[in-house]
């Protein structure tokens, strides 16, 4: 076709506008006889080495920058770091043995003593040091929270990915099962499961994981539904990727944001749930200290010794709040479109 019969001005545009940063394509005479990829333009020399100096701004760097600006989230991070350190170092920094019943920990009438030089936060109903018990209780809360949440996460990602990617009958089965699970009163379900199985920390983790996989599955499923329609997934299929490769290399990396956000929010929920189960006596068994169980033991003394309820309650509240703040901060950091405070 000759450019003369164009008549629509498009040829003028094609011949006229060639920004100098781009090489002159197509109209030159350099292409005679070249038939192998790469020999066509073959002028690597025209790229100036200065081009390498363009500043590299990584995606994760941007997210970190936004996250760091969020004061509330940073407070949460600091609180979590302190909590983790306390839990890890409990055997070395705890002033007393958390399970030892001290004679001097009780008054003559058998009542717990208040804060003193010896027992900083006072003692509990059996004369054990409250501060040491709180420190060891942090270990239980974190271990149960992290593992139960990790278990829920693995189930949620597997089910959500499978349902969202393969659609069809698989999706119907998995998502309707999720709906049914969500319709269950979860505390009742957990109580039933724990009372059938022998209560132990592992059973507790398993039960909380089983109860909490449903919201994760839903979130991942919804996310996968939108990602699988993106053109880069079509492109991957066209290049000959297997389903497995598409799932792992192309879809999973786009779920990282949502997984991080929901994990930190989920940690708050699982820690609270552990406390709930321990409070009703189905969680961590005595004498191992756990915050929920401590509240349960101290509640009948709440008039004479309110510190027995207040301190473990505060510990739970601060932990849950910290994870929620971090989760909210992450969500904002991953979503730059959202209006900031």
């Amino acid at each position: 076709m000759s450019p003369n019969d164009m008549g629509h001005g498009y040829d003028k545009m094609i011949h006229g506008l060639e920004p100098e940063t781009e090489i002159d394509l197509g109209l030159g005479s350099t292409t005679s006889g070249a038939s192998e990829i790469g020999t066509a333009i073959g002028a690597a020399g025209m790229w100036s080495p200065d081009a390498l100096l363009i500043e590299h701004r990584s995606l994760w760097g941007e997210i970190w920058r936004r996250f760091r600006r969020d004061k509330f989230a940073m407070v949460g991070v600091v609180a979590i770091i302190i909590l983790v350190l306390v839990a890890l170092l409990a055997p070395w920094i705890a002033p007393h043995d958390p399970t030892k019943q001290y004679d001097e920990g009780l008054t003559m009438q058998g009542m717990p003593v208040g804060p003193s030089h010896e027992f900083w936060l006072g003692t509990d109903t059996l004369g054990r040091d409250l501060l040491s018990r709180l420190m060891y209780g942090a270990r239980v809360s974190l271990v149960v929270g992290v593992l139960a949440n990790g278990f829920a996460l693995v189930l949620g990602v597997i089910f959500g990915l499978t349902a969202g990617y393969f659609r069809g009958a698989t999706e119907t089965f998995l998502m309707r099962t999720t709906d049914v699970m969500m319709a269950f009163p979860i505390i009742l379900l957990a109580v039933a499961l724990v009372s059938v199985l022998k209560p132990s920390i592992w059973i507790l983790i398993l039960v909380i994981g089983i109860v909490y996989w449903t919201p994760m599955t839903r979130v991942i499923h919804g996310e996968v539904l939108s990602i699988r329609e993106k053109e880069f997934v079509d492109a991957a299929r066209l290049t000959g990727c297997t389903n497995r490769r598409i799932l792992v290399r192309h879809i999973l990396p786009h779920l990282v944001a949502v997984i991080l956000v929901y994990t930190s929010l989920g940690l708050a929920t699982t820690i609270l749930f552990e406390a709930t189960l321990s409070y009703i006596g189905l969680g961590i068994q005595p004498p191992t200290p756990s915050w929920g169980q401590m509240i349960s033991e101290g509640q009948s003394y709440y008039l004479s010794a309110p510190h027995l309820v207040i301190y473990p309650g505060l510990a739970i509240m601060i932990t849950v709040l910290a994870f929620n703040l971090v989760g909210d901060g992450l969500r904002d950091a991953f979503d730059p479109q959202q209006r900031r405070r």
Partner: protein
Amino acid sequence: MSGETLVRVEDLRVHFPITSGVVFQRKVGAVYAVDGLTFDVLRGETLGLVGESGCGKSTTGRAILQLIRPTTGRVLYEGGDLANLKGNKLRQQRKRMQMIFQDPYASLNSRMTIGDIIGEPLLVHKMGSKAERKAKVRELLETVGINPNTLNRYPHEFSGGQRQRIGIARALAVEPNFIVCDEPISALDVSIRAQIINLLQQLQREFGLTYLFIAHDLSVVRHISDRVAVMYLGRVVELAENAVLYEQPMHPYTQALLSAVPIPDPEAEERRRPVVLTGDVPSPVEPPSGCHFHTRCPAAQDGLCDVEDPELKEVRPGHWAACHLITGGTYPHIRAGEDDLAVVAGGGEAA
């Protein structure tokens, strides 16, 4: 152009079911996105595919490449039916045909470096060693005009035009014969469009590529295509060589479509009288009976056009049209009258 058929599409239909119900889904209807397409793509040519939004152009492209499985019909690539292929056999065939996507922002995985993106086709088809693949990626980047030293960068560090070049490099990696270009320039800045078009044409000359070029911009299609197919509501209404179609369109729809193209000459533009069709494109959920275009066609004849499906027939050598009113060398000539559309009955005499 050798005239040999590379891809043959036979009575291709893609119907998307509309379902209702939560657990047991009932089919309550269908979107007839592509409804009986037949055409050939010749080796080495560029076949333009034009039509309004929602007429099934993109669906056609995707169905040919089996990204959407056709409901019925065959897609023959060098004589072999792709619609029956599954799994590994299909993956092998995919080395022969690729696609360039419309949206350069959505078509590159933002979590992979461009080196990984372009190298992935080579990797999954186990072509060459690691070092060879890397060399090939650099070669491909140079071919499309991107600095090969940038292969460790991520897509968000590139402009729209550069991303489209990266997408083209990915498509070229497996050395395909046939590339579906799905509106490859409509998401780009006007100043970048010409460069991408030039690049596509240059690559075609160099590697002997065959293009199915989907677009709604008639001027671009005219520039790049050897032949043009016009689609309306899931069907091809006219297919002819470029010059013939633009100079002497026979189908009433094509005539209306072409009259809508603005002329970049103020005086000529002043005199231009576009044929303005009444009404909207009917819904593909309930396409009109008979000729899909009869509801808007100024020349439609009751009892014929709304009853009988027109067949896509060769009205002159190499010129195909689907219209009852094109007979024996005459065709309805649609012109814009003073107030309304006028049909000069049998006005056109096919030269």
